[in-house]
């Protein structure tokens, strides 16, 4: 039951998959995301980011002075009709 529980709602990545990947590769949060695609869906990880971090940091140490937080723009999807902006 818990294994099939969804963590990343956008990409439907499960708790089981994340815990297994974290244990196998003993990876950082960022690596865990890249390996599973958790947090890389439509919402940009706003919903699951903390949960993925928690799973990663239960097998590796959190660096509290991480310094740069990785976020990739655009942080909100842009539709094609919206491109071509001009200064107002």
């Amino acid at each position, binding site marked *: 039951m818990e294994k099939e529980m969804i963590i990343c709602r956008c990409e439907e990545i499960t708790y089981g998959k994340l815990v297994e990947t974290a244990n196998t590769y003993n990876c950082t949060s*960022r690596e865990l995301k*890249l390996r599973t695609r958790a947090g890389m869906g439509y919402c940009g990880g706003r919903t699951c980011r903390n949960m993925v971090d928690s799973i990663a940091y239960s097998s590796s140490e959190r660096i509290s002075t991480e310094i740069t937080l990785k976020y990739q723009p*655009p942080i909100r*999807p842009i*539709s094609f009709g919206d491109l071509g902006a001009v200064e107002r």
Partner: protein
Amino acid sequence: MTRRIINHPVLDKIDETNVISFTFNNTELRGLKNESLAAALLANGIRTLRVHEESGTPRGIYCNIGHCFECRVTVDGQQGVRACLTPLKEGINVSSGETFLTSVRDWRSENE
């Protein structure tokens, strides 16, 4: 039993007179002008706004403030509109998100 909270012990009474009509998946519905699409749909008892593009599981609002993108619908042909922060206008046609095919994955494929 209505889902609207017209009278409230502390907050002001709401104005429920500005009723307009719109459609959701081709069904005609009524809502209050300028309330959020999500609120208008819920007031009509509608919770499922779309299905997950790949697995087909039903989805509704989750955060209600624009963060999770679970509530995205198509409004008059424009895809990916967040129902929780889009005001309701007279005569609009709202439908459950169309399949985005590969575009959803690709627009942020460079992410992280």
